[in-house]
């Protein structure tokens, strides 16, 4: 029988090395999987992990995919630090796009620089309010925020389906269940700043917010309270932290960030609201947050790596006839290895002989 025993001291170096180890192990095991499927593993790994970072077209796509992941993961990581597990970022992403998009569609035909910022504010508020539902239920009734936030993803997706068939449907769209294209309308489209790199206004806002998150966690008393709550809830109460406020604030922040990401996706890459609008960024961001060790800089790097697997996955689907699910398997594998290695850092496996 095997048993886990807590280590007296866990290695700091290994702590930072685990994300790298997890990526490498994913390549090895994933490669074996491809081999079993009759696909050349070297080609597949090259397409998934190397090509996205060297090919110039792919490179411009990289940041477009990475920035919503990073933005959402940044928000989630703040909650995770406090031990508040928001699993429903996908739903907040959808509600953000719906709220911001609704404002943009309501103002259709108007012009002005203020329209897009107004939409962004609406998106952040929408996402935050959606995330506050599990917060209120947790504070009031001690309901598990993991379940509630996850369930609300499906509610949000159904709401989206209703909206694109109803009030938000494009009046000139010949009845298709989709909204007008906000990206093709100047006042509501996301401006590009550094075109060849794919950094748009959303990316810039993301980087600023990332810096803000860094400041919050490192330098601000609220960030201290958030970390203290996660590390030692009883000490946090003794330090005067009100647990309800931390739950509401962290869920609110992560919801707002996911909502903003939803709006940037809508006004940039996606353009219009359809039932296919959510593509799983909200879930992948959970992997990004952990792969980045809940640290703003780590999240930036992890976001780029996972965005790479999205792009590489599309190319591999096209070139190698790789099934679409393979990318999801890859991302899942990465989280699995990451968490697995993490356990081995903090615990050691010992063999226990059963007493006769």
């Amino acid at each position, binding site marked *: 029988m095997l048993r886990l025993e807590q280590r*007296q*001291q866990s290695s700091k170096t290994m702590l930072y090395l685990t994300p790298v180890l997890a990526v490498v192990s994913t390549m090895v095991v994933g490669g074996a999987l491809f081999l079993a499927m009759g696909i050349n593993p070297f080609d597949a790994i090259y397409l998934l992990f190397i090509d996205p970072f060297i090919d110039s077209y792919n490179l411009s796509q990289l940041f477009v995919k990475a920035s919503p992941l990073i933005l959402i993961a940044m928000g989630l990581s703040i909650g995770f630090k406090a031990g508040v597990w928001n699993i429903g970022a996908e739903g907040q992403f959808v509600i953000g796009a719906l709220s911001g998009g609704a404002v943009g569609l309501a103002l259709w035909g108007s012009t002005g620089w203020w329209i897009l910022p107004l939409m962004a504010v609406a998106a952040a508020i929408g996402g935050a309010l959606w995330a506050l539902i599990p917060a209120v239920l947790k504070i009031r009734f001690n309901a598990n925020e993991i379940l509630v936030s996850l369930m609300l993803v499906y509610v949000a997706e159904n709401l989206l389906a209703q909206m694109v068939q109803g009030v938000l449907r494009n009046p000139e769209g010949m009845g298709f269940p989709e909204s007008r294209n906000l990206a093709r309308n100047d006042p509501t489209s996301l401006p590009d700043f550094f075109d060849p790199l794919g950094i748009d206004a959303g990316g810039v806002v993301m980087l600023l917010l990332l810096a803000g998150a860094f400041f919050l966690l490192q*330098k*601000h*008393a*609220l960030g*201290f309270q958030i*970390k*203290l709550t996660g*590390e*030692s809830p*009883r*000490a*946090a*109460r*003794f*330090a*005067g932290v*009100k647990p309800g406020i931390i739950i509401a604030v962290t869920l609110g922040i992560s919801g707002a960030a996911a909502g903003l990401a939803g709006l940037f996706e809508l006004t940039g890459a996606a353009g219009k609201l359809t039932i296919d609008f959510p593509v799983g960024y909200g879930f992948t961001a959970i992997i990004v947050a952990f792969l980045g060790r809940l640290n703003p800089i780590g999240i930036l790097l992890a976001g780029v790596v996972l965005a790479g697997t999205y792009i590489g996955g599309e190319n591999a689907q096209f070139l190698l006839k790789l099934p679409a699910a393979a990318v999801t398997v890859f991302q899942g594998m990465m989280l699995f290895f990451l968490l697995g290695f993490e356990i081995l850092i903090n615990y050691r496996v010992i063999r226990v002989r059963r*007493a*006769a």
Partner: protein
Amino acid sequence: MSTLLEINGLSKSYPGVKANDDISFAIQEGEIHALLGENGAGKSTLVKMIYGLVKPDEGTMVLNGAAYTPAKPHAARASGVSMVFQHFSLFEALTVAENITLGMDDAPNRKELSAKIRSVSQDYGLPLDPDRLIGDMSVGERQRVEIIRCLLQNPRLLIMDEPTSVLTPQEVDTLFGTLRKLSADGVAILYISHKLDEILALCDHATILRMGKVVDTCTPKEETAKSLAEMMIGGELEIHAQTEFNPGADALVVKGLTLMSDDAFGTSLKNVNFTLRKGEVLGIGGVAGNGQDEILAVLSGEEKVEAEMVRLNGEAVGQMGPNERRVKGLLSAPEERLGHAAAPAMSLSKNAFLTGRIRKKLAPGGVMKSRRTNRFAREIIEKFDVRTPGIHVAAKALSGGNLQKFVIGREVLQSPQVLVVNQPTWGVDAAAAASIRQALRQLAADGAAVIVISQDLDELMEMSDTFAVLSEGRLSKQQPSEGLTIEEIGLMMGGDLEGTHHAEA
């Protein structure tokens, strides 16, 4: 008598510290051998090596003439070495017999085990009902369970880590009777304690550790408490003289305090009354688990009660949270150092911020002032002689005594008007305990009001101006400490309210 365990040159290093350095001594069969030393002297590391929890870097052990290298506690137990820890590992919702079964490597069936528990516990004067729930038992009874659990394995060597810190004086007497009987039956006992009078009364030999080394050995019966303490700390022990007691105005008035505990194994507070005046030290005695944690939580603001129940300088503060009370000068230091008074994985600097933020203005407007915070942390470390490489060390890396000095120092240096401390010297060595008591006394002499909640009666008698006992959530009448005898108090603690029958008139 022949040698049971011989320890030759054991050494163990952790990063940055040599916890044990070339330790050698021997334990004879059937002797009660004291292991004495300040906190951080290396006692825990040493017994962990003997019990197979930690592997020595160097050195050997010989048990009964054969090489002894326990890889884990299971091997140690198989060789006849058992240990009773300071903190128990019992499940409150299970019975005595069930708990004992869980800890056994090869448990007999329940009926056989129950009979065995009864007979062993009778033999050694520790009566125990195998079918009782742990949750319903006092701390002293729980310790019996741990001891019986060890005795069922027929140990040759029993290690006891600070066994009396949780017991009433009467329970201590019972325990000593048991230990003497075990010793007479040939079981050797390695007895770890800070309480010098216990070692004098009980032990045949003593090995004294200081900074990881054996510095002395002696026969306690030929020593005095003072000489033992001097060996332990390597200097003359300063005994503080009681200062004159001239109380000022009322600082903290608690009236009709009642609190229902929402924890199934917690204690509800029932109509607690006391008045604390400026310059006064109130000692609250009693065995742990009789409402101490609850009283602290009510005074710190973690637990809210009706506003009028707690008055600070005349103002009703029962509804205020911890930080609002800190603004008004009511500070506290809980018993549990790691996870309550301090966050284990956070640095000392961050832990200084944890309660110092308000009064020391460490984050005006929300932004943390790291230089000011670091300066405060360093001030605590210097003024309270906290032994640590620096302010960036995690709280959990400090020995219990050093962390306690840090926690007390953190509150004292914020110049409180009222300070409430729970078990301020629990697990702290004599020198550190003396300096903590001195600091609290000084605080009162400077005009603050202090409440010391403790199980150590000698400490309370030494420090307090007035005294009360907490028993099952009720507080006895608050009376002047002078003239009370240890025996009277001990009886009050055991729940005999005779000494206090006029308390709730």
